[in-house]
């Protein structure tokens, strides 16, 4: 790994083929919310194998993610995805479910396991348990602060992967309410959830992807990257499972440049970066829970830039 890793998420082969990944070091393949998502890598083993190969051919690391809440009936497919990941030379698998972590540990002991945000790592003691099961990296639970993240990385001696931009997961369900309404709309499952659907009430907004609920605002840590780097973080994620290739490319370019500056000790962010973010922001920006506050709030100095994104 270079001085840092910037990674992103891609749900299917079509999106992978349409995406320019030049800003990234690694890619997570698969959609964690829904087995019915259009040609989900996690359901199509030939696509997954091709996806891993294509990512690695670009000199990037290929990671295979797994479902956020797999019930028993999904486990055979999870097993197949793990086998495909191992056979195709994936660099790691991401697990959100501790049963799946156990499967990886027992059946694929050489495979690096990244613990995902739905696995609920809140404490250093929890991370230590998962380390014993082969975890080498963790995404902190989405509702903990950076101070808490630091206590986990320090206490457990395991690096954290920090989401720096994109819609933040707010929940996962076994039930897609969009299916109740789809007869009213021209788009149907499995592409309906890829529309820009928002649940709104007053000034509240959440992005709906059917079985998943995401933040309405984009989590944005652009102006806080120097602090993240100073705190020792080196793995950063742009969450883009439901975003367009243009979003993935332009936001990736913004963060690649800003991270290179931050690592070099320069905290300045070019104004054009904020313009690019504005173009890809529908509702506004937030910092999630990183500063111990309400997840939809934004804390920072760039008040004007942030207001323009609302």
């Amino acid at each position, binding site marked *: 790994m270079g001085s840092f890793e910037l990674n992103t998420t891609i749900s299917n082969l079509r999106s992978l083929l349409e995406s320019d990944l030049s800003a990234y070091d690694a890619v997570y393949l698969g959609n964690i919310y829904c087995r019915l998502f259009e040609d989900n890598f996690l359901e199509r083993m030939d696509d997954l194998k091709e996806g891993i190969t294509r990512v690695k051919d670009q000199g990037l690391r290929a990671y295979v993610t797994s479902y956020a809440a797999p019930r028993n009936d999904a*486990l055979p497919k999870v097993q197949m995805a793990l086998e495909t990941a191992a056979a195709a030379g994936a660099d790691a698998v991401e697990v959100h479910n501790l049963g799946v972590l156990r499967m990886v540990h027992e059946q694929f002991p050489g495979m690096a396991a990244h613990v995902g945000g739905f696995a609920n790592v809140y404490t250093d003691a929890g991370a*230590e348990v998962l380390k014993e099961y082969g975890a080498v990296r963790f995404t902190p639970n989405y509702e903990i602060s950076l101070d*808490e993240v630091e206590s986990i990385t320090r206490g457990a001696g395991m690096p954290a992967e920090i989401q720096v931009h994109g819609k933040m997961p707010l929940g996962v369900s076994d039930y897609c*309410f969009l299916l109740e309404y789809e007869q009213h709309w021209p788009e149907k499952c499995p592409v309906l959830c890829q529309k820009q*659907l928002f649940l709104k009430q007053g000034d509240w907004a959440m992005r*709906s992807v059917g079985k998943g609920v995401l933040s309405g605002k984009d989590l944005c840590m652009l102006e806080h990257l120097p602090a993240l780097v100073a705190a020792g973080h080196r793995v950063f994620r742009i969450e883009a499972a439901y975003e367009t290739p243009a979003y993935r490319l332009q936001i990736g370019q913004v963060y690649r440049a800003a991270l290179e500056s931050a690592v070099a000790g320069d905290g300045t962010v070019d104004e054009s970066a904020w313009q690019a973010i504005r173009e890809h922001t529908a509702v506004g920006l937030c910092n999630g829970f990183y500063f111990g506050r*309400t997840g939809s709030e934004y804390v920072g100095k760039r008040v004007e830039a942030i207001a323009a994104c609302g």
Partner: protein
Amino acid sequence: MVELLAPAGNLEMVKAAVENGANAIYVGARGWSRRRDAYELADEQLHEAIAIAHAGGAKLRVAINTNMQSCEIPSLLQKMDKFVGWGVDGAIMTDVGAMAQVHRRFPHLVLHASIGANIVNNQDVKFYRSIGVSQVVADTKLTFRELVARQAELDAGIEVLIHANNCYTYLGKCWMSPYHRLERTTDNFGKDLFRGSPNRGGLDYRVCLEQWDLFDGEALLEPQIALKNDAFFYLDDIPALIDLGVHCLKIQGREYPVPLVASIVRFYRELIDACLAKPADQPFDLDPWRLRLEAIRAERDGRRGNMTLVLLNEARQPVPQPA
């Protein structure tokens, strides 16, 4: 014999649960469980709760099922020293690290994986067994078929919620409430509280129950979308659950008034006893029970609806900023 596990949000409710036939009662340690502090017990009250339960022939479990901070685990272990010394019969927990440490320190204490652990498959159960958990609460979304599969293949005790909420999202995997409002405070004993985060022991503002409008970009697609979130009572499945051999039927509801919880406990006590007393070759007539449950359900729904309005209103209040 299946165990009837009742909630208690105060000492009066502990007494009522025992008197109405609960085999076990669970209470939250103040600041450490998935309910607001008004429905949790201070340490000395918890001591008294253990005595009340044991005097009535019931067990007492303590819920310490918040997702705590790393720095809080030593305090938790100190609390557990007291509770175990007082004779608590089990602990309901969520954080895997805290569970592993409690198990190492008290290897004979029965550990229950909370609903917040979101245990959804058999591999999950095996994972939790490996860190010392002996009973798991089945996620409310699991089907009867999944419970049967679990019971057949695993050695962990299964607890099934028979009165609870079935949220739109999986419990323990939802941050909708603190995304809209999170208030950090501390209680009188210095314990951090996360008002707005049910996973962290605050309260859930139930924002999923808001009347959401669905937009495609800026265009209104559907007004007043309802995200499924039901409070349920099991009835038809109770005889089958007993036949299946589930270890524990669990009632949620620490936040409800004592008389309502007492009537729920009494209802299920009598239902379970009637099921067990029924000759194996005779069908069990649930119709009289259905009528009785409707009255309880009506009162619960009224209370729940009012509580939801209060919470949604509170969720709109600004968070006081530190001076």
